[in-house]
């Protein structure tokens, strides 16, 4: 085995880990190793022409949904971390990370684009660039598998689903119709929902083009979803927040696809004292796209962003963004 091949193997090993956070209880599937029993995709009861038709069917089945009060609405308080998903099973044939792009799932142009991403991942060990590197928001569907921490705040009229990458906040408007008065689409679109007992069913529309991850397919501005969220308990004290999702995208998918994502309680993060903070991507990110690949700007180089330097008013006292240690890097005003 050549050294390059070894490096590729190493990168793939890291990639498997990335695709399947929380490997402590690895599952037998090619991807989606997570916490607790294997994740099982539950497809919709029948095919639907659109996400809206799907959502309305589920709403009718739930007889208009459960009207929760502040005391009865399901509580998913605290920090949560990703605990596996199956989204890569949609796009890659067995045996998993060494498999090939499954043909006929994506439309021809999206399939061609994805094959290039997958080629980079498998041959070079890295997709050469990630759109998040220039601080593009995570967007949806990528929100579903971003790591770090999540918070799920349910109120009777609205739910706030937060990922600390950004932070990236999804708002679910309970019992409402879709609205879009902005004349465009957005990173998290417009999400409406209803409660079916302890399950939360949502419909998301009006999204901007994004992706599942940098090693997964791109999505279009016609991407939509129907989600069913539920907190589930399993033997052995395993508690998992799961969402069954059907993704619709007439530009990217030949037909709608299904996946399940899971989260577990972030007790380690809570014990460590983690509090979700604003990410300072625009002011601190020094990773850039250059000559077809990713590289980093270093202190003193043109374009370097000093996240802990002074503000635009360095002559005023108290303008350092490093208030405890007051450090400076080369090229900075003291």
């Amino acid at each position: 085995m050549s050294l390059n091949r070894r490096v590729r193997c190493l990168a793939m090993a890291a990639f498997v880990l990335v695709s399947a956070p929380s490997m402590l209880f690895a599952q037998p599937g090619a991807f989606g190793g997570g916490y607790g029993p294997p994740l099982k995709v539950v497809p919709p009861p029948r095919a639907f022409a659109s996400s809206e038709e799907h959502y309305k069917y589920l709403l009718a089945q739930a007889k208009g949904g459960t009207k929760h009060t502040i005391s009865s609405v399901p509580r998913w308080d605290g920090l949560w971390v990703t605990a596996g998903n199956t989204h890569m099973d949609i796009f890659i044939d067995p045996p998993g990370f060494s498999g090939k792009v499954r043909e006929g799932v994506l439309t021809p142009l999206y399939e061609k684009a994805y094959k290039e991403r997958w080629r980079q991942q498998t041959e070079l060990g890295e997709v050469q660039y990630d759109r998040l590197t220039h601080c593009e928001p995570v967007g949806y569907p990528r929100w579903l598998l971003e790591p770090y921490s999540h918070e799920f705040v349910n109120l009777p009229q609205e739910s706030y689903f937060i990922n600390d990458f950004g932070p990236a906040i999804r708002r679910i408007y309970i019992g409402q119709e879709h609205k879009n008065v902005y004349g465009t689409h957005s990173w998290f679109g417009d999400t409406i929902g209803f409660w079916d007992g302890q399950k939360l069913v949502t419909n998301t529309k009006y999204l901007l083009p994004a992706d599942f991850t940098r090693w997964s397919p791109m999505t279009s501005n016609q991407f939509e979803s129907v989600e069913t969220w539920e907190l589930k308990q399993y033997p052995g004290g395993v508690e998992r927040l799961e969402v069954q999702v059907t993704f619709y995208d007439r530009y990217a998918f030949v037909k709608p696809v299904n996946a399940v994502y899971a989260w577990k309680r972030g007790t380690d993060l809570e014990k460590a004292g983690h509090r979700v903070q604003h990410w300072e991507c625009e002011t601190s990110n020094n990773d850039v796209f250059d000559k077809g690949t990713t590289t980093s700007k270093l202190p003193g180089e043109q374009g370097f962003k000093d996240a802990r330097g002074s503000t635009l008013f360095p002559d005023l006292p108290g303008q350092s963004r490093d208030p405890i240690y007051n450090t400076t890097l080369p090229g900075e005003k003291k």
Partner: protein
Amino acid sequence: MKTALRVPLAVLVAAFLMSAVAFAHHSFAMFDRSVEKVITGTVTRWQFNSPHSWLYITVKNPDGTETLWSFEGAAPPQILPRGVTGTSFVPGTTVTVSYCPMKDGRPAGGLGWVRLANGMYLNPADGGCDGSDKAIEKWKAWMAAGYTSSADALKGK
């Protein structure tokens, strides 16, 4: 030679598999992850920011000049559970750092583990290099033998 290579590489792979999630918001294409090195210097700044932490250390060169080295680590939420906080690497203190160097040769790299002046090891690594317990144990033996590069250690130079 083959066995000498195989064992540390297997350890490296296992270390990656056992390490925390390497899920950065960018590709690690700029780092040469086939090589690990260690270097000692004085902390200039520990920038415990999302989306990436950066450790800046000043290293004295053999000719008496100094070079600022920059090492990229993981986001705070990833490494807080590993015991790394915003006060772990105090400016002015001496640290030894393992890193995977930039492919273009600039004084920077993907951060692996960090050894504090009191001998304690911490793992602020992202996917850019390996800072796991297994990597630390491997390097303890290599450093005791005087190695500062995995390439030399694997060759037994």
